[in-house]
């Protein structure tokens, strides 16, 4: 009872102090204005993108169904487009979306890559960052904690208050607890209202049936940021306790902040790429092309006894069968090559997530995107679904070609399928993975963040116990 009272007393006093010296008002107010601006912009962008994607997807399929009689392979060539649905939480963290594009062309013969990334139409300034709630919390959030808490211990030591407090017999750890509580409360005063507004925006912006999932994601997302900011609460208090003056404390803290928020993302990105290099486009295409040729030759040799395309042994009337064989043989080759490339990217990301132990921004960045559904794992899930749909279209078209193999011998492409063939292809109906899947994929970064919190708390406790009152 007594200890709890003491804790709340310390916390209340600290909180009042922060209100009185105005730091909470101007620093917090600035962050709040930015947060609401980012949310408004994200909301508007998301509404527009969603409406556009849904309309485009519906129109795409309608046009597919309304094709006239035509050769199935021509229909497959023209193919369909798969539009990546904008995640419900993209409004708070757009993640890698601006850099990866949102449209896949599902065409014959080859696996397409996602094209049309927003970054290609952006100005030269996009490298300074995209204003999003996630960016503000990741970069400016720790700075806010520093501004609010750098002198929590050091300032009191300079004024001689710390000596008095400790001489009253207040246990140092309880003092730390109270100060941490006050700092957390100051942040909560600013961020909880913002989180509530974001929750309403997400709930309204999410489509039917995904609302609960979106809110679950948001809850986990918010938890991640609470842990992230918690790390800084303890680091700031620890450094403040360990520093002889508040000037020293702010210098160390600002240096730490710059190192982790400004420099770390770039340095770790360069290092992870050096450790797990991506192939060049030329090397990738050449390797893929060579393997496609090899597997195609193998199936031709096996099925037709020759690798010569379209001769006396394999007339064009076998075109449908050959196409199907080639396609079927190419699928594992695509899976291998793209799989290897994507695995490389994921390994690069793992390096960054692990380094989050020392540089929490890298772990929270990954976790934030992951829960928002705008990370590479979600993108990979979409691309894989789009590719499976492409294969389905190709297989259905080839099957029809096999069934209607040219009876006349030289009029293969004259065959025209009836429109009811088009209806055998279902619409591309992609549902992003659930919150649980996202959380499982981000287990590593969440664990790293939690470990970071424990380390930071241990450091703060250690520094508080060892501090000198003078």
């Amino acid at each position, binding site marked *: 009872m007594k200890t709890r009272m003491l804790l709340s007393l310390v916390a209340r006093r600290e909180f009042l102090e922060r209100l009185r010296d105005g730091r909470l008002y101007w620093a917090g107010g600035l962050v709040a204005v930015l947060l609401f601006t980012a949310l408004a912009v994200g909301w508007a962008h998301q509404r527009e993108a969603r409406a556009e994607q849904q309309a485009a997807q519906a129109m795409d399929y309608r046009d597919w169904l309304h094709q006239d009689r035509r050769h199935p392979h021509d229909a497959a060539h023209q193919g369909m487009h798969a539009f990546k649905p904008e995640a419900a939480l993209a409004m708070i963290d757009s993640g*890698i979306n601006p850099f990866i594009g949102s449209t896949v062309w599902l065409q014959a013969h080859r696996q397409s890559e996602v094209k049309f990334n927003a970054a*290609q139409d952006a100005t030269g300034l996009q490298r300074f960052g995209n204003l999003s709630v996630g960016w503000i919390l990741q970069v400016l959030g720790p700075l806010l904690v520093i501004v609010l808490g750098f002198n929590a211990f050091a300032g009191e030591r300079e004024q001689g208050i710390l000596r008095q407090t400790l001489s009253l017999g207040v246990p140092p750890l309880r003092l730390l607890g109270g100060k941490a509580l006050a700092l957390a409360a100051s942040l909560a005063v600013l961020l909880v209202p913002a989180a509530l507004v974001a929750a309403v925006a997400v709930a309204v912006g999410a489509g039917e049936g995904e609302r609960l999932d979106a809110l679950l994601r948001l809850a986990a997302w918010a938890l991640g940021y609470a842990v992230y900011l918690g790390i800084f609460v303890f680091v700031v208090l620890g450094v403040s306790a360990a520093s002889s003056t508040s000037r020293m404390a702010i210098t160390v803290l600002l240096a730490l902040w710059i190192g982790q928020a400004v420099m770390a993302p770039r340095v770790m990105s360069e290092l992870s790429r050096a450790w797990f290099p991506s192939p060049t486009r030329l090397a990738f295409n050449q390797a893929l092309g060579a393997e496609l040729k090899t597997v195609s030759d193998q199936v031709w040799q096996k099925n037709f006894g020759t690798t010569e395309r379209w001769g006396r042994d394999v007339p064009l009337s076998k075109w449908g069968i050959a196409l199907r064989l080639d396609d079927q043989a190419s699928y594992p080759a695509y899976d291998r090559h793209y799989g290897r490339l994507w695995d490389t990217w994921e390994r690069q990301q793992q390096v960054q997530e692990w380094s989050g132990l020392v540089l929490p921004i890298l772990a929270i960045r990954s976790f934030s995107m992951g829960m928002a559904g705008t990370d590479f794992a979600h993108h990979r899930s979409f691309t894989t679904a789009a590719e499976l749909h492409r294969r389905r279209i190709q297989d259905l078209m080839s099957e029809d070609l096999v069934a209607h193999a040219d009876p006349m011998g030289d009029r293969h492409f004259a065959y025209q399928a009836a429109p009811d063939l088009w209806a055998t292809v279902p619409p591309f109906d992609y549902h992003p993975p659930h919150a649980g899947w996202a959380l499982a994929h981000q287990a590593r970064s969440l664990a790293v963040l939690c470990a970071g919190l424990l380390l930071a708390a241990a450091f703060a406790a250690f520094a508080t116990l060892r501090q000198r009152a003078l």
Partner: protein
Amino acid sequence: MNDNKPLHPPQGRRLLAVMRQECRLMLAERTLWAVGALFLLLVAYALGNGLVQTASRDRAQAAVAQADSDTRAAQRVLLTGILAGTAQPTPFENPADPSRMTSSYGGQHALLPTAPLGPVALGQSDLFPSQFQVTGQSRVVFMNPSDIESPWHLLSGHFDLAFVIVYLLPLLIFALSYNLLSAERENGTLRLLLSQPLRLRTLLAGKLSVRAAVLLGPAVLLPVAVLLVARQAGLGGTGSGVGGATLWWALLVGAYALFWFALVVAVNAFGASSATNAMVLVIAWVMLVLVAPVLLNLAVTLASPAPSRTELATRQRIVTAEAMKRHADLMSTDYQHVGRGAILVPRDGKIEIAGRLLGNYLIEKEVDEAIKPELDRFDAQQAGQQALLGRFSAVSPAAVAYEGMTALAGNGTRRQARFESQVVAYHAAWKQFFFPRIDARDALAPADFDRIPVFAWQEEPPGLLRGQAAWAVLQLLVPSLLLFGLAAWRLRRFSVA
């Protein structure tokens, strides 16, 4: 004081004395060594990284160019063989057929070479494509980002010299000089100094110039030296106009540093405590370097949004479907060569083009024409955005400096736009060469190979580069002078107590 003597004697020698004294003081302190060493380390890492990235990009481009020339040479050998009757073409691998040579079978890459200063500011070089395989297809098909890069890296950006200068140099300037006057006052030494025949201005100038020398030395001289050595060793970009660009780059870095020094002086002139000065400076940095460019980018994107790519994809699909419908007859014809290989061989300089190949050619041609207005809209919008940005970038000196540096390094939006417009012109020449031959069914002969258009990059005229750099320097100098003016005004009533 004697009336005959001026209150302040000539300050030139005193300035030197102040500088000497500052040097001695700073050398004795740890800060200078720490800041100097850190800065050197950052500059060295950034430069090394820039050189490595540029070299690997150059290697990748050289490999593409080599692959192109190997392909073309093999096609030429095949063509000679076909004409001599020793080789048999297939419908898809037939160098005599202009409809094949205009497709990706014969298409060649247009490459944007690295500019001489490329390694100092990688800018958008990983985001904007520096190679396109130009074919007879519409440019909506081939003018897309093609490099393989993890999106996480694209999001993070590079650690290059421009980053060190734009983001970190101001902080190091703060570290060395946030307490330029406040420390002297807090120690009581300012009163002592100004009791000498020394103007406050002279004192400030002396202190500033020593600090500027410490930071600008590594920021300007080291990169220039490294780039020269790297070029000698065959690394980094090649080309002329290096001297001019390097000079402007040094001026730009100098002007950017001057802005932050001016801010430091102005903040110090208000006479607050060292702690307050540090706080105000860091907040100014957060606002000007972190927040303002992001908001500016947002404002420009909102004021002049890019047209929808989703809409473009839909439009492309529709015009393709329409063109396919128009040429359904050609698309229904079979390949006629099975058992009649002679049909693929040119006769009297003419060649028979398979119906489906001809159909594909016509479809692509029509798609290209139909989609052109949409693409022009994109280009115009992008130019508009960039112009808007140019007008308002003065809001953030960081934005001005970053844009200026990437432009000088040849990795900015303007050089990219120039590349893309040259690719469009090359595409037109390509079509001009092949399309009449396809229409007339003219077979390609080995001699024609020498006449196939080749992409030759025309570098930006140095005048344009100079103009943009001068504008950037001016945009940095004006606010610096305003800040110095503000400082001078405040310093007149500066209290030394």
